[in-house]
């Protein structure tokens, strides 16, 4: 069987779902192929923190753009997506980190993201369970949280409503030269193929610079009001940067249910999805430094997932090498939920009329091909 489409999207994680939704919204005849459940991979494993991050100017551009797109979309999301504009508190341990708080506030203002510096007294009032020894925090009120698998499901269902077709439980066995082959022999022809398979993108393109970076999360029973904002230690970036070693950081989130979601860990070279209790213990120890009472809560589940990490911590968005029909939307590491909507806009703008709201250049996959050629 052979079918013709304007676009075929491989992968219905949050990024593939967003791309398919954007394509269908523009009137493109769109097919989306998913081997498992919609949003069943890294999308289901992550925290669902919609967050502006400034690891690099390009990351700041994509996250702030995307955060705005989520706020626009939020009123249309179903209740199950549990979108909540709870804001992020970047928690500073000492005076040195308070300098970082001020730097961050000024930088965020340059991209139109308002934020507020809290001193230690204001922080204690905002989050009474935090340690009184902390120096303060930066409050970014426009950040939020959601339940990503339901958001992905919404995006796919809305794309289908707009005319897209979902190939559920089909595996893409090859993609290129305008042709996507599925495991049952079905051939989907399209002048544009988007590989949005996350850490599995390498199964179709072994040369992609994407590695799995394992993470653990813990969720507690319901403790309404225990925490009000997503709390992240400012040292998070230090640990997220550390590529050589396993690392943990204090990162905690209130769910609408009253449950508390606790992260986070980062490990390269750990391909096994088994829970590593030494990492969980390190996460909880780290959390207790910031929130001593966390140890009194009852955890009900612990799970792991794999981020799709690139060497420069920016996603791969755009054409891949010599095949003019093949495009990437993958490699979003820990920011795929946030940046899915921005990724979809940037990529589909690029495909449709070549003009994007934010420059696509920093995310073009060709940056790795170039650097290898000059190495």
């Amino acid at each position, binding site marked *: 069987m052979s079918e013709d489409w304007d676009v075929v999207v491989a992968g219905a994680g949050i990024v593939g779902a967003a791309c398919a939704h954007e394509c269908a919204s523009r009137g493109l005849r769109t097919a989306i192929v998913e081997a498992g459940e919609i949003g069943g991979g890294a999308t289901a494993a992550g925290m669902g923190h919609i967050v502006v991050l400034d690891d690099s100017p390009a990351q700041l551009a994509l996250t702030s753009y995307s955060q705005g797109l989520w706020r626009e979309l939020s009123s249309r999301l179903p209740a199950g997506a549990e979108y909540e504009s709870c804001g992020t508190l970047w928690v500073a341990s000492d005076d040195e980190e308070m300098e970082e708080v001020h730097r961050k506030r000024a930088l965020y203002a340059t991209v139109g993201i308002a934020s507020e510096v809290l001193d230690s007294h204001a922080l204690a009032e905002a989050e009474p369970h935090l340690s009184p020894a902390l120096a303060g925090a930066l409050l970014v009120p426009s950040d939020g949280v959601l339940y990503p698998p339901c958001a992905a499901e919404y995006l796919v269902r809305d794309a289908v409503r707009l005319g897209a077709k979902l190939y559920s439980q089909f595996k893409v066995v090859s993609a290129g030269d305008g042709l996507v082959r599925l495991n049952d022999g079905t051939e989907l022809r399209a002048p544009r193929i988007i590989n949005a398979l996350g850490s599995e993108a390498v199964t179709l393109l072994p040369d992609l610079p994407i590695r799995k970076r394992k993470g653990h999360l813990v969720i507690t*029973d*319901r403790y309404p009001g225990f925490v009000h904002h997503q709390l992240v230690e400012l040292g998070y970036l230090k640990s997220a940067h550390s590529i050589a070693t396993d690392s943990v950081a204090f990162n905690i989130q209130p769910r609408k249910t009253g449950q508390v979601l606790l992260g986070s860990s980062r490990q390269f070279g750990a391909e096994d999805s088994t829970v590593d209790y030494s990492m969980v213990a390190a996460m909880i120890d780290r959390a207790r430094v910031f929130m001593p009472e966390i140890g009194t809560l*009852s955890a009900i589940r612990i799970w792991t997932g794999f981020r799709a990490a690139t060497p420069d911590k920016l996603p791969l968005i755009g054409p891949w090498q010599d095949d003019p029909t093949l495009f990437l939307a993958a490699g979003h590491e820990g920011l795929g939920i946030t940046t899915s909507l921005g990724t979809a806009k940037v990529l589909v703008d690029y495909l449709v009329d070549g003009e994007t709201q934010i420059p696509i250049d920093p995310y073009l996959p060709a940056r790795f091909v170039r650097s290898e050629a000059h190495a």
Partner: protein
Amino acid sequence: MPDASISLLVNGAPVSVAPGTTVAAAILMSGPRARVSVTGEPRAPLCGMGICFECRATINGFAHKRSCQVLCEPGMDVRTA
């Protein structure tokens, strides 16, 4: 008849139990009111060995304690809702 020498409060009502009594038993002794699920359904201690989580109660202000795994102590404040 064991010596009911430990007094505690279950949902504000005094209960006296023998040493070695679990909080789950004290909840059952105090009346029919155990936990209510998030969808409003009544729940009660079931497995008695810390597995089913149906006996959860707030003990001395700490929520979601498995009451079948905690022994009664004098002056304890136990709440099932």
